Each structure stands twice: as C-alpha cells, then as structure tokens.
C-alpha cells in the first residue's frame, strides 16, 4: 500500500497542516489550487470536459473505497450511480421537487442499495461477489426496459431541472465549480476515512480477513460500512450529474457495462487502494477519451478516423497500461519521483519498494530541501 505510513501518532489537525505534509501531498494541494483557478485560463469547452472529468473522479473514488480497500471487487458500481441519479430525476420530473432536495433522497436510496447488495454479498468471496455485482446493473437495466413507462428504457430520462436553475450555455463555469466542489468534498471525506484507523482495518481485511477477525474486530461490519459509504458517494455523484449538462438519467451515462468497466479502469490506472489515485484516474480517463475523440487521423487497416473509434483505441491503450503499470499511475509516479530524488543524493541502493526506512529518510530529506527551495509561501 502506498498510503502514508505515518498513521498512529499525532492528531488530525497536525497531520493536515500543510507544513508537515510530505511533498506529494503538497503537490496534490497545489494541483487542487490550480484546478480551482483553471476556468480563468482555459476555453469554455475544456471547462465542460473537466466538469465531466470530476464526476468520473468521484465515481472512481467511490469504487476505490470498497474495492480498492476491502478487495471486494465491484463490477457493477453503476447501480449506485443509477439509483442516485434516477431517484433524483424521477422526484424532480414527477413531483417537481427541487434538485437540492431530491439529491439527498437519491443519496439515501443509493446507500440503501449498498446495504441490499452489500449484506448478501458478504457470504460470497472473490469471483462470486464480482458476479453478483456484474449482474446487478443488468437486472436494473431490464427493470428499466420492462417499466419503460416510468424509466423510459435504455434511453433514460431527459428534461430534468438543472441544479440551481443554471443554464447550459452561460452556466459552464458555475457547473464546473459544482463538479469540482463535489470532487474536493468527496476526496476530503474519503481521505479522512481511509487515512484513519478505519482505513487500516479495511486494508487489513483485504490482505487477511481472518487476522482481522482474530484481533477482535468484525470484518463484516467494516465491509458493510465500506459498501454503504461507497454506494452513498456513488449515488451522490449520480444524483448531481443528472442535474448538470454532464449527464442525464440513462443507463448510458450511469450504468452500462462500459461505464462500469471504465470506472474500474480509471481506479486501477490511477492506483487502486489510494483514493487519490482513483480520483486522478477518473479525471485522466475522461481527458484521454476526449483527446482521442478529437483525432482525425485515419487508422490504416480499419480505414476509419481515430475520432470514430476512440473507445476502441482507448480500450487498447488501457490493456497496454494495465500491463505496464499494474500499480497505477499515481503509485508509479510516486515511485519514479522517489527514484529521481534518490538518484540526486547518490544513494542508488534505495529500493523501489516505496516503504523502507532508508527510502523514507532520503525522501524526507529531499522534501525538506525542496520545501526550502519552493515553499516560501508556507512560512
């Protein structure tokens, strides 16, 4: 696990003090600050793309908290997005309830769905659980098709009120901050949960549930907690996105097999079991996909422009990346970053295991030095 080994001593406030944060965390904060002012620097279209990207960051993080931490791989996280999104959209369309009120209802129902799927799933291990989660969105889709008078089948619901009455054209920046705010909020919540003792327990469950049980903790309780938290956050993202131009309440946006796979890919590519990695992965996934959609170069054998087959290219890139960086982009970057830092000090003996004491010392020394060089504003 790449997460910080400094658990134990020190209160929360002390750990969150930017002065004491390790370099990568400071870089992360800097990145967030940069993202907050981005709309001033980039085109409106890019602002729109980024808004969608933040939602995907949240999707991936919500997946990560259950699958990355407890090892219970969910292949159907879209169910939670869909429960949140459809609940909010139906309440808004059917009863004219303002999104601000219908979204929380969506979150509650999504959490309930997490409980419904999570509790029985505890009986199952490994691929069996994954099968249940893989099938759950298919069942929900069938229900949507069967009751298309309510759910409008595969095409989903449109004409839902936008959040805060914002307009698609003119409201782009406001929607950006909605998405960004959601992203930061979820990131903060999940970091708090996973970087405290609960996170350590969750990780331990993944590694060896029996040991956890032996130490007097009830792994089931923690697993269910992770499931419900994850479902609630996924439901929140789904409920919010249907009230923005980034998405609508349809299986295509919320829970097709493609969505479910992309969420997993995002989290794995970014770095499973790190929250931050999943968030970054979600954002990168959308940016990469949009980049591909803009390439007009024609692929020889197939005879079609990349823009028309962007998802195919994306799937292939993913396959390659999964081979090259099974640990994820963020983890790879951190390790690579450490290597660079280590090389500077001439101590090539430091391994890339990312957690040994010598590596840590060297790393701390260099972060201190960098802090002195760049961190004037901290004082």
């Amino acid at each position, binding site marked *: 696990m790449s997460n910080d080994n400094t658990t134990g001593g020190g209160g929360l406030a002390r750990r969150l003090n930017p002065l004491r944060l390790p370099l990568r965390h400071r870089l992360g904060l800097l990145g967030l600050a940069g993202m907050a002012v981005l709309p001033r620097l980039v085109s409106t279209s890019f602002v729109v793309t980024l808004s969608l990207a933040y939602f995907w960051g949240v999707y991936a993080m919500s997946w990560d908290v259950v699958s990355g931490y407890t090892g219970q791989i969910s292949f159907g996280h879209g169910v939670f997005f869909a429960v949140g999104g459809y609940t909010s959209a139906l309440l808004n369309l059917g009863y004219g309830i303002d999104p601000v009120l219908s979204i929380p209802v969506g979150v509650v129902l999504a959490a309930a769905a997490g409980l419904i799927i999570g509790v029985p799933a505890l009986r199952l291990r490994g691929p069996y659980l994954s099968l249940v989660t893989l099938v759950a969105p298919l069942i929900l889709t069938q229900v949507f098709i069967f009751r298309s008078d309510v759910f409008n089948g595969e095409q989903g619901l449109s004409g839902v009120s936008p959040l805060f009455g914002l307009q698609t054209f003119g409201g782009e920046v406001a929607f950006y901050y909605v998405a960004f705010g959601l992203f930061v909020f979820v990131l903060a919540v999940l970091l708090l949960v996973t970087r405290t003792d609960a996170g350590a327990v969750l990780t331990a469950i993944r590694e060896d549930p029996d040991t956890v049980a032996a130490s007097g903790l009830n792994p089931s309780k923690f697993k269910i907690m992770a499931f419900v938290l994850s479902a609630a956050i996924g439901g929140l993202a789904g409920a919010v996105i249907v009230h923005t131009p980034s998405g609508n309440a349809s299986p295509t946006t919320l829970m097709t*097999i493609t969505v479910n796979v992309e969420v997993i890919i995002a989290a794995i590519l970014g770095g499973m079991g790190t929250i931050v990695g999943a968030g970054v992965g979600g954002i990168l996934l959308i940016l990469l996909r949009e980049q591909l959609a803009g390439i007009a170069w024609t692929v020889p054998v197939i005879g079609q422009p990349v823009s*028309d087959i962007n998802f195919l290219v994306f799937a292939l890139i993913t396959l390659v990346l999964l081979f090259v960086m099974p640990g994820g982009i963020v983890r790879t970057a951190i390790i690579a970053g450490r290597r660079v830092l280590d090389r500077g000090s001439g101590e090539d003996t430091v391994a890339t295991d990312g957690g040994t004491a010598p590596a840590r010392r060297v790393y701390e020394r260099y972060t201190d030095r960098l802090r002195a060089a760049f961190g004037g504003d901290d004082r």
Partner: protein
Amino acid sequence: MANILQFFVQSTIRSGLYALVAIGFTLIFGVGGVLNLAHGASILVGAYGVYFSVSVLGLPTAVGFLAGVAAAGVFGAILYLGLIEQFTTEPIMVMILTLVTSIAVELLVLNTAGAQPVAIPQFASGNFSLAGTNVQFNQLAIFVISWVIIGALFAFINYTRTGKAILAVSMSEKGASLVGIDSHRINLITWVIAGALAGVAGIALGSQLAASPVLGRTPLVLSFSIVVLGGIGSIRGSVVGAYLIGFLEVFVIQFVSSDLSGIAPLVVLVLALLVKPEGLFGRELAE
C-alpha cells in the same frame, strides 16, 4: 394441453442452444478456475468469422463455418497466451482484462462490420410443425449439434489421454504437475477447445438471431447463470443448468410476459449465488 406440448417443444429446443452456449465457459472455469468474461467475444468471433468468410470473401458456407470455428479457437489461444497466463494468480485482474478485451472485440466488430445486424447462413432452412408449434429445421440442427458436442466432450474427457489430463489439472494443478502433466499445455488446449465451442455457439446463435456487435452479451450472462446454477466447472451440471434456465425462460415468455424473458436468468443467478453458491452439481472451489 396444446400449450403444454408447445411449451415442452420450445423449451427443449431453446435449452439445447443454451447448453451449447455455456459449455465452453464451464470448461474454462472448471480447468483454469478462470471466469472468462471474454466468452461473449469468442462467440462474436465465431459468428463474424462466418460472416466475413461467406458474405465478404464469398467462400462456400461449409468453409465459412470451419473458418468461424477456427477463428474462435485461435482467439482462445491468443487470450490464454497473451493475457491469462500472465495473471494466473490474480483472478480479479483476469476478469478485468477479459472484460476490456471483450469490449475491444465488440468495438472492432462494430467498426469493421457496422452496427446493423448481419445475416449468418443457416445450417438448414425451412420449418415444420410439431405439437402445434412452429419448429425450424435450423433449430433442430442446433439441438442435434449441441448433443453431439456434449457427447463428444464427455468421451474426450473421460476416454482420451489428453482429456484425462484436463480432468487432472482441473482437480489439482499441483498434483497434475507431480505426475508429469504439462499444465501449461493442458490449459492451452482447454482454451482452444473452449474457444472453438464458443465459436460454434456463435454460429448457432447468429444463424438463429442474426449477428450483431452485441451478440455475445446475453450469452455471457446466460453462461454465468447456467454455470453457477449447475455448479462451477461441472459439464453435467451445466447441461442441467442450461435446461433449467431454458425451460424457465420459455415458461416466463409463454405464461407470464415476453418482456420479462431477459430478467429471469439473472434472478436465478442471484438466487443461486445466495442460496447455494456451489451449484447443483458443483464442488467447493479449491481455494
């Protein structure tokens, strides 16, 4: 009474196809312990292999069938050598990789053959009336092929050296290695056979329904349901599972609502997983 007869005829016909669809999936789950989410992709390769050889290249239909089956077999080999072998100890990674692969194959088909469904030649044309219901000769042919393949597979596994080796590896890979069985080779053989069987299933499905880029999705889910119901890795169990699901589906279509036909196997799958995860004929997963 006529309804009941009709029900039995339609169910039996449908179940034969389902057994054919699930059998390759079972084989791989049983031997390698791998949940092959690219099973639908193999089905797609089989169906479109025929489409490309017959409709695009203009080869004779029989050659086209062989080409489709061969393409699916080769695809199985590529999957095993290219992906599965690298990640034998990481079942989740295998699931993800096979899922991404199947999406990639779907997209490849979509972008080469188009989104519109295409016709696949039938094994036999025409139809006849049986017990007051319409039965096509093609359906009958599929039913026969299904049983021939099931029989051949039984014979192969129980009476040939390679077949017995497959059985040994499925029981214990370590044990098999101890007695000198090359489990790598056996796994590869299994993947090729399973791929080819999926190819046959793809041709059967395509000839019955027409092939489209999403042809493999429903069969994949069906295979889950059948295999979980019948018991992981048990060929006999899958055949029984296929018949149970086939009968259930026709029952729902005929006596409840055809709108619900897609949901029935899914519900069975979830119930089976929750109530009796080891299936009707399965053994506990070795791990």
